[in-house]
């Protein structure tokens, strides 16, 4: 029983990261209608950027976080300017392939700089095992859940309370109406890409504390897709819940069976959900038919 709870807790931790990444992914999707495959590799970039700053420049972790945020923001803007914007209006397949090409590019560059093997990440977050009612819970898990909850809260407030947030929601909801009202689509897309990239990078930084960091981390980033779909491709609550579910399932599978089964089982669950209820948990039926 205690093992179960431990697995659930660590699943919630990793799941909250998936939720964060899924948030950015859904935002990009709803604003630009593009399914950005690059999200997984942006997670990897975030982890490696952190690694580079920590090991090459010896910057303490607390300072690394804002630096990575800024770099990720710039990267997101660059992606919008050089990849998305020139190809706006192209057929969907072309745009998706562009994001795949982007992901290949990112992966290639990372490997060229850091090689293919796993890198030893210096320990960044305190990792002590707390004993709560006989269940061992790692502080790193709690910290991660706290951080992601904070990030998601900030985004939620941003979307609800600010003017720009309102405009983003408008574009995500109905791009034609947003154009009628005079919202600058390109600027909103840039913002969406910025947020999407930043969430992915932060996700990478956090994941680095839970997983071995290698280029394979981008495949973990892929798990944000089922999280987003489970959540119904709706922004915040859907992604979070979807992420948590994916995380918990993955951890339980890893704990009770093994690691490679975990991915298969997680995606298997996704498959079943898609077949039975394609609009996910929060989605509405209308959006889904071809």
């Amino acid at each position, binding site marked *: 029983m205690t093992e179960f709870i431990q697995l659930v807790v660590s699943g919630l931790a990793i799941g909250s990261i998936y939720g964060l990444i899924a948030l950015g992914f859904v935002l990009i999707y709803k604003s630009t209608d593009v399914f950005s495959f690059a999200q997984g590799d942006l997670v990897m970039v975030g982890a490696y950027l952190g690694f580079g700053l920590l090991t090459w420049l010896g910057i303490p972790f607390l300072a690394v976080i804002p630096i990575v945020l800024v770099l990720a923001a710039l990267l997101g803007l660059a992606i919008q300017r050089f990849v998305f914007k020139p190809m706006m209006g*192209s057929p969907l397949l072309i745009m998706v392939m562009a994001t795949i*090409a982007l992901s290949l590019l990112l992966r*290639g560059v990372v490997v*060229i700089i850091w090689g293919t093997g796993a890198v030893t990440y210096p320990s960044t977050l305190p990792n002590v095992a707390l004993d709560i009612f006989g269940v061992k819970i790692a502080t790193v898990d709690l910290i991660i859940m706290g951080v992601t909850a904070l990030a998601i809260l900030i985004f939620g407030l941003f979307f609800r309370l600010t003017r720009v947030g309102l405009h983003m929601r408008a574009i995500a909801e109905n791009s034609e109406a947003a154009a009628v009202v005079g919202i600058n689509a390109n600027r909103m897309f840039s913002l969406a890409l910025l947020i999407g990239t930043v969430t992915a990078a932060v996700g990478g930084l956090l994941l680095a504390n839970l997983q071995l960091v290698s280029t394979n981390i981008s495949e973990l980033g892929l798990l944000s897709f089922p999280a987003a779909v489970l959540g119904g491709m709706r922004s915040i609550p859907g992604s979070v819940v979807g992420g948590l579910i994916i995380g918990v399932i993955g951890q339980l599978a890893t704990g009770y069976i093994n690691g*490679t089964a975990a991915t298969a089982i997680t995606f298997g669950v996704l498959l079943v959900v*898609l077949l039975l209820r394609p609009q996910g948990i929060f989605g509405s039926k209308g959006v889904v*038919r071809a």
Partner: protein
Amino acid sequence: MSRPGFGRIVTSYRQERRLLRTPGRIVVLVIALAFVFLLPMVLLQHSLFGIPISDSQLLGIGLPQVNLTLIAIMGAISLNLLVGYTGLISLGHAAFFAVGAFAAGFLGTQLQLPFPLVLLGAGVAGAIVGLLIGLPSLRLQGLYLMLATLALHFVVIFVFLQYQIGNFSPAGIPYLSPEIGPLIIDDDQKWYVLLLIAAVLLLLGVRNLLRTRQGRSFIAVRDHEIAAASMGINVPRVRLTSFALSSFVVSVVGALYAYYLGNIGEGSFTLNFVIGYFAMIIIGGMGSMAGPVFGAILWSMLPQVIQTIAKQVPASTPFFGQVLNAYQGFVVLVIVAILLLVILRFRPGGLNDYWQTLKGGVTKWPYRNK
């Protein structure tokens, strides 16, 4: 008006019905046959009509690379049928290759069924899996098919791994040399002939399919679903047919791939594999017959080109030297990625666009090709 030669100019109905319409086509066919015939000899003997050719002049390409290229061509054509001609984005390419390899292992190595039967079994298995996945997903938006096939990828690979470990070894599933009647295909030359015939058959088959009503309905569904539906085309059924057909073919190619390599493990079927094929059809030009062929050749030959360049650059050269020598695979990846982005932005028609321009220029000369 009737100019003999390379042009596409036809002057009689009888001429139009002929397989080789103009003298130009006959010339092209003869050249192609000669090339195909001489290629293995040149590669193996490293000489052409007595003139020696060095290994590096050939870019280190040998018959094995050519055979793998042929397999890639077949894989690319079958993916293109689904993506380029029917407009369905499926990430299950590696999964279907794996299904084929699995069938080859089960039916071929374990049950020792005759080779043609194994291939047929592989195709049927692929088609069944395709139908299972396709039935529910094809009624939904493209996004869901992408995700369903992504999920399929992970599930199939996992099952394959279990089968592999359960029945063989973690090192991989071994395959025997295929036997077609009295002929045992056990060296690269025999594989070359087999794969060449298979590739040509596939090419002709797909090309002809696209001329039939079925094939044209694929294209109609890709281009404008609503218009197609209003013409009476049953859109979900067309998609399902295309998906099942493509899965059938891909699984057969997967079985051939397994037999050729002699040994396959689960690690061969990665997402990078899938992405590679997408790169092939995009760079080559989707929605065309020649496109996947160009793309497959480029993708297969690029590592050789990089390798040859790497040999010229000593490892001591700062940055480039190290990178080229240590991470050739990823240099290829970066180059492909950049190529993809450039093509997607500026020339979505891919290499095929250039090919059509070239062909047009030649056939219409001395007029310009507009």
